[in-house]
């Protein structure tokens, strides 16, 4: 799991590549979100385009990230969900929690 950080306007974008799974990817996501928040970010956009697998720990970490960012007065949204990741959010009903976008420009403008 590789995560790189970049900024557009007032939004920090985390580009994720690989698997958000127990013990590795979930930890990487947690660290990246906390690093962004500690760096002053309030608006986070997680780009899941390069993510192939999200297990239950990965889904849990997305939920934890959402809660952490929201509790700090920020917003966390998702963009570019591969079909199988979108399926997971649908099956778990987390699609009702996250604001999800297909287009990065649109996502950035939404904050």
């Amino acid at each position, binding site marked *: 799991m590789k995560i790189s950080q970049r900024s557009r306007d007032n939004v920090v974008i985390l580009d994720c590549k690989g698997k958000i799974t127990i013990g590795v990817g979930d930890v990487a996501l947690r660290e990246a979100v906390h690093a962004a928040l500690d760096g002053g970010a309030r608006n986070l956009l997680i780009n899941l385009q390069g993510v192939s697998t999200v*297990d239950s720990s990965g889904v849990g970490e997305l*939920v934890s990230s959402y809660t952490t960012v929201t509790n700090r007065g920020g917003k966390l949204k998702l963009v570019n969900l591969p079909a199988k990741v979108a399926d997971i959010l649908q099956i778990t*009903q987390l699609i009702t929690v996250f604001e999800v976008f297909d287009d990065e420009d649109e996502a950035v403008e939404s904050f």
Partner: protein
Amino acid sequence: MPDDDFRFHLSVGSRFENIELVQAVLNDTLERIGCGDDVRHWIDLAVREAVANAIKHGNRNDPDKAVEVDVAIEEGDLVVQVLDQGEGFEPVEVSDPRSPENLLNPNGRGIFYMKSFMDQIEYSFRPEGGTVVTLRKSLSGPAGSKE
């Protein structure tokens, strides 16, 4: 689909990175017997949860304790058994992770994954210790094969 005598066994130490080893062997095997991408993906997710539970809750991340994985085809069904060397644990399951009061709970979706992606899931406990989870999924019909 392969003959019913198809089976293999894997034994891995209790490290999360070993889930990738199980996944690689299982995925390669399922591809060779003709399972399509989608079916392999969902089976992979279910088996990941079983192995992760065995490592975390069964063997409590003790790398010296093994997780045994048995894979077989029985009457057209894929049967995966995952055994740990722990003292036996009650699988944790929230009532329904999709209900509004549970949606923001970061835990409790492992068994839901297994139930969602396999046809059947069963836990048993060996008298000498260790928990066995058995996952079963039909590979016959269009859902189990490439188009």
